[in-house]
C-alpha cells in the first residue's frame, strides 16, 4: 500500500499518465481522469490525499470542478496545475479553497515537499 493516494485530473492524457508513473515511483498511488465529470464522480467514491486539477478541461471548467469537489470533500487539498492560468483564475481558485495555484511545467520535488508537509499537518 502506497503512502499517498492522489487524483490527477488533466485532459492531456500522456502528461497525466506520465506524471502518474513518476509519482508511483515516489510512494504515491495515482488515479487519473481526463475530464471534470469523471473527477467529481471519483471524489464521491474515494477519499484522496491530494488532487492535482487542470483548469482547461473539455467538459467543465476547472474552477467549477473545484467548487463541486469542495462541496463533496471540503478537507481534500486541491492543487491547480495549469498551462494558461490568469490572475483572475488564481484569485477565484484561492477563494474557493485551492491549496496552491501552479503553472506547468511541474517541479516534482516541490510536489513531494508539499505532500510531506500536508502529511505532517494531518494526524
Amino acid at each position, binding site marked *: 500500500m502506497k503512502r499517498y493516494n492522489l487524483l490527477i485530473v488533466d485532459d*492531456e492524457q*500522456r*502528461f497525466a499518465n*506520465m*506524471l502518474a*508513473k*513518476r509519482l508511483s*515511483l515516489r510512494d504515491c498511488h495515482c488515479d487519473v481522469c481526463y475530464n471534470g465529470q469523471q473527477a467529481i464522480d471519483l471524489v464521491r467514491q474515494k477519499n484522496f490525499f491530494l488532487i492535482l486539477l487542470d483548469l*482547461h478541461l473539455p467538459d467543465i471548467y476547472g474552477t467549477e470542478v473545484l467548487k463541486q469537489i469542495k462541496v463533496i470533500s471540503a478537507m481534500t487539498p486541491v492543487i491547480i496545475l495549469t*498551462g*494558461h*492560468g*490568469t*490572475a*483572475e*483564475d488564481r484569485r477565484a481558485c484561492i477563494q474557493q479553497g485551492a491549496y496552491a495555484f501552479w*503553472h*506547468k*511545467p*511541474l*517541479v*516534482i520535488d516541490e510536489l513531494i515537499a508539499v505532500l510531506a508537509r500536508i502529511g505532517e499537518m494531518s494526524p
Partner: protein
Amino acid sequence: MTDRIRRAFQSIWPEFNHPDNKHLDPYFTFSDYRKIWVVGISVLVAAALVPLLVVTVIHYQLLQKSVDSELILRAERVASNARRAVTFFLEERLNALQFTVNEIDYDQLTDPEHLAEILRNLKLGFGGLTDLSVIAHTGTQAAYAGPFSLEGRDYSNQRWFIECQKRHFYVSEIFRGYRDVPHIIIAVKSFRRDGSFFILRATLDTDGLIQTLASYETGAHAEIFLINRSGIVQTSSKHHGEIFEKMSLPMPAYSLRTQVAMAEDNQVGRKEPLIVGYAYISTQIADTPFILMVIKHKAGMMQVWQQLRSNINWFVGFAILIILVVVILTCSYMVNMLYRADKSKAETMALMEQSNQLATIGQLAAGVAHEINNPLALINETAGYVKDLFVLKEQFHQDDELIGYIDDILDAVERCGTITRQLLGFARKFEVKIQKVKLNEVISDVLVFHNKEAGYRNIKVHVDVPEDMPPVETDRGKLQQILVNLVNNAFQAVDNGCILDIKASPAGADKVRICIGDNGCGMPEENLPKIFEPFFTTKEGNKGTGLGLAITYGLVKKLHGDITVISKVDEGTTFTVTLPTRIQEEISDNEGSTGR
C-alpha cells in the same frame, strides 16, 4: 520685429507640411492643406464678391439706361418746343404777306408810299422785316420799300423767283445776298385782275430768329442751331461749325417728326457722346429749307451721375478689399486650426503606435507562452520519468553521463518554464488597487529582500527620502514590484563594493520622482532605446530572460507614470521613475483578450 512680421505673414499665408513633420504624413486626415486653404478662400471670395459685382453691374446699367432716357426725353422736349417756335415765327410772317396780297390789289401795292406804309405796319405788328418789294411776272421789281435802293432790279433768273412762281410760297435759306448781311427771303405769289401774277417779297433779318432759338438753350452743355438741307450751318454754333460752313455732324435722315438719337462727335481731337435732336421745319403753307438741331453733350449733362458713380466705385472697391482681407484671415485661421488639430492627432497616433509596439509584443509573447506550456510540461514529465528509471535501474545508475544529459533536458525545460511564467506575468491581467503609500516605507520594505546580499557583497545602499515627503496615492504592490525589479537590476549590474543610491523627491505639484542609480558597469548608448523591449538582455550566459525591465515598463505605464534611463559605460546607470501623486480614474484593463 522680424518675428512679428513673420507671424503676420503666417496669418495670411500659413505654412503647412513643415519638412520636420514628414514622418507624420501617414497619420494626417487630409493630405493637402494648401489646396483646402486655396479652395476655401476661392469659394468664400466667389460667394461674397460675385453677388456684389453682379448687383453693381446691374445698377450701372439701370443707371445708364435711366440717365439716357431722361436725357433723350429732355432733348426731345426742347427740340419740339424750339421747332414750334421757329415754325410759328416763319408761318406768322408768311401769313402776314398772304393777308397783304389778298387784301390789297397790285396797283395799290406798287404805290411806293402805300408799300412803305404797309412795311411800317408789318414792322409794328411782327418786327424783323427789313424791306418789302413787289416783283412783276417779268421778274423786274415793280415797287420797293426799305433801306436799300433796289428798284428796277431783275430777279427773273433767280432761284427764289422761279421756285415761288412754281409753288406760290417761298422761304429762302439764310444768305448774304447783295447786301452782305445774313437774311431770309420770304415770298408769296398772287394774281392781278388781268390774270398775270406778281410776287410780294419780304426780307427778314435773322436776329429775331436767333433770339427765339437762344431762348430755348438750357445750360452750358446744350446748343440749338439751324442748318439747311445740304448741311450748311445757318445760325452760328459753338462746336459744330461757323455760319455758312458745313456742319461737323452727319446729316440727319428726313423725318416728319422730331427725332432724338445718340451720336458721337467725330471731330479730330474730340470724341464724346452726344444726344442729337432734330426736326425738319415745315410750315402749314410752305416747306422750308431749315433743319433744327438740338445738340447736348452727354458728358456735361452726366456730371452729377458721374459723381455718384465714382462714389459707388470707391465704396465697392473698399468693400472688396475688406471682404478679401476678412476672407483670407478667416480662412487661414480656420484651416490653420484644422491643420494643428490634425497634426496633434497625427503626433498622438505616431506616439501610440510606438508604445503599442511594446504592448503588442507582450501580448504575442503571452500567447506563445500559453501554447508552449503544455508540451513543455509533457517533455518535463517524460524526461523526469526517464531519469527516474535511470536512477532506479542498476544498469544506468552509475552512468553519470546519461544522467547528466537528462538533467540538461530538465534544466532547459525549467528555464523555458521560467520564461513562460514571466511572459504571462508581463501581460497578466491585473487591477490597480489605489491606496496611500509612504515612499520611505515601500523602499525599506523592498530593501529588506536585499539586505543579506548587500552585506555579503559589501554593497552600500544610500536611501534619501525627505521626511516631509507627502504620501503617494498609487498601487502599493505594483510600486513594490517596480522597485524590486530595478534594485535587482542594479544589484546584477554592480561589482562588489559599489554604491547604490535611491532618492525620492517631488517633481512639480502632482508628481514624484524616484531615482535608482548605481556606479556599476553601465550600458553603451546604442542599447538604451532597446532595454525596455521584451527579451532584450545584456547579461552574460543564461542569467537574464530579458523580461525584467519590460515588465517594469508595463507596470510604470499602468500607474500612469514614466520611466527613463541614463547610463554611461563604466560610470553607472540611473533609472528615473516619475509617478503621479494621484491616479484619478480606475485604470482600465486591456489584457482580457489574452486570458484563456
